[in-house]
């Protein structure tokens, strides 16, 4: 079993009567590019804040590098680079000076600044004041701040937020290259599925504070293949039969649709035919990842 860089156990955060994160069991393996996906307000940022000990959990624990963040905060944070919610920068300072603040705090060598600027392709603009930067450049500076020092884990909260398509592509390519360049595990949160699909190899889907799915992107995609459309006669009896067999059945536009984690299409066919139903159509619907996500989070029906 791969080593876990992040593991949360029953992580819960309540703000008064609002439960922002509920019983979250997140597992991020070493070397993964983990996409933490969820709509705005789903609980991503609160989770990230708990991982960084900016917010205390109401219940549960967050382990980074197998140590509880509450009791080993400094030791853990030495290995973690983070950009929380939006990049922070002091507009009155240059890109170099912004990184110099981090360098001083972390007691790093000056070459670390140049290294980070090089990775995010900001070396040319290092002496320009940040207030003259475009949003994409500011985002890259935020990533550079997270890269300062030998970080083993990078947590990037919505790094493509507010960028134009060109900026999104630029940041996306940068993030994809990070594990290879830095050797770090990367957790990136986003509310944009297509972004996560292009960047991540592992995905966690959070909705209303609950983790609905966690696994590889392939596993998530496979979930979208598990809908079988059936046209059979008599339809109502067929629906009843399939329900009795324990399938999750829906009737739409004169067809029955079965969704489940594991369906053997041949077995469904055999059972129906043996029961005497006239099966005239049996197909596996390939859902798009977007549909899987929306269905999972209750964004669409069916």
């Amino acid at each position, binding site marked *: 079993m791969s080593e876990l860089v992040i593991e949360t156990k029953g992580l819960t955060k309540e703000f008064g009567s609002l439960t922002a994160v509920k019983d979250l069991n997140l597992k991020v393996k070493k070397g993964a590019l983990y996409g933490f996906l969820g709509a705005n307000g789903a609980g991503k940022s609160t989770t990230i*804040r708990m991982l*960084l000990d*900016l*917010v*205390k959990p109401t219940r549960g624990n967050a382990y980074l590098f197998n140590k509880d963040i509450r009791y080993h*905060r*400094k*030791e*853990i*944070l*030495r290995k*973690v680079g*983070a*950009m*929380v*919610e*939006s990049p*922070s*920068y*002091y*507009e*009155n*300072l240059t890109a170099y*000076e912004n990184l*110099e*603040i*981090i360098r*001083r*705090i*972390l*007691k790093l060598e000056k070459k670390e600044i140049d290294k980070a600027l090089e990775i995010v392709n900001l070396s040319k603009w290092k002496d320009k*004041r940040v207030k003259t930067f475009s949003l994409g450049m500011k985002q890259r500076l*935020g990533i550079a*701040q997270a890269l300062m020092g030998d970080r083993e884990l990078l947590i990037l909260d919505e790094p493509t937020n507010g960028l134009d398509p060109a900026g999104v592509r630029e940041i996306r390519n940068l993030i994809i290259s990070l594990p290879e360049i830095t050797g770090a595990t990367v957790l990136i949160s986003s509310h944009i599925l297509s972004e996560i699909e292009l960047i991540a190899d592992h995905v966690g889907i959070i909705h209303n504070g609950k983790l609905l799915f966690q696994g590889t992107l392939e596993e998530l995609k496979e979930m979208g293949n598990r809908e079988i459309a059936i046209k059979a006669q008599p339809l109502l009896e067929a629906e009843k039969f399939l329900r009795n067999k324990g399938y999750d059945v829906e009737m739409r536009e004169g067809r029955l649709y079965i969704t489940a984690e594991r369906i053997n299409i041949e077995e469904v066919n055999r059972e129906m035919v043996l029961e005497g139903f006239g099966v005239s159509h049996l197909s596996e619907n390939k859902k798009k990842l977007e549909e899987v996500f929306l269905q999972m989070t209750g964004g669409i029906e069916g």
Partner: protein
Amino acid sequence: MEFYRLLRGEFLKQKKSLTWPISLFAPILAGGLSFINLLIRYDYLMGLEANQGLSSWNLLLFQHHFMWFIFLPLVVTVIAWMVHYIEFKSGGLKNTLALPVSKKKVYLAKWALVFILSSIMIIINGFVLLLVGIALRFPEAVDFILILKYSLYQIIGILSLISLQTLISAGINNTNIALAMGFVGVASSLFFAQSEKLAKLIPYAHIIFTLPDPTINNHIPIQYGLSLGMAFLLIGLIYFNRKEIC
């Protein structure tokens, strides 16, 4: 060492900001106004019955203090606001606290920055007063002790205000509210100073009592500036250490 590194970071954050110019020019401006005041009205003021027996240096401090007791807390309030506003504006606090640093030391570094800038301002004010007296060719010898006492009382007396404003600025997410509260507090300081109890308990009034004069209770800035300064600092440290950065 971590505190020192954080403090250096805080100083760097203020580079090219208005914090330094304000800290340096506020006492020069106030001193310049006092110079003009005494240049024009020295003979008149020395002739007033109320000022009989005062030395020229005492007169200068009296005249200067009427403006400075409002000016100093006001500028310190602005500096405290600016130190926190830069984080509010940049969203930098959450990223600083995501670094392997002690929350208490982050708070302490901010407090220390405001204290250092305030002290620099007070010391410059003392120097400017010396220069004003020399430029006006006072007949008496330079009263170093008087100016030293005046500066020292202020450095101690301002502690309570710094700690309170730092606490408010760190406690309220919108630092502009802290600034507004500070302005109201400073504007009301003269009213607080008229009450024996409030003069001691309200930090905004402490600077009023820093003028070295037998008729003024200099124990207020020394005792209450120091004790309330430490108390508010301690409360701030505990509060900030527990604060959730949402």
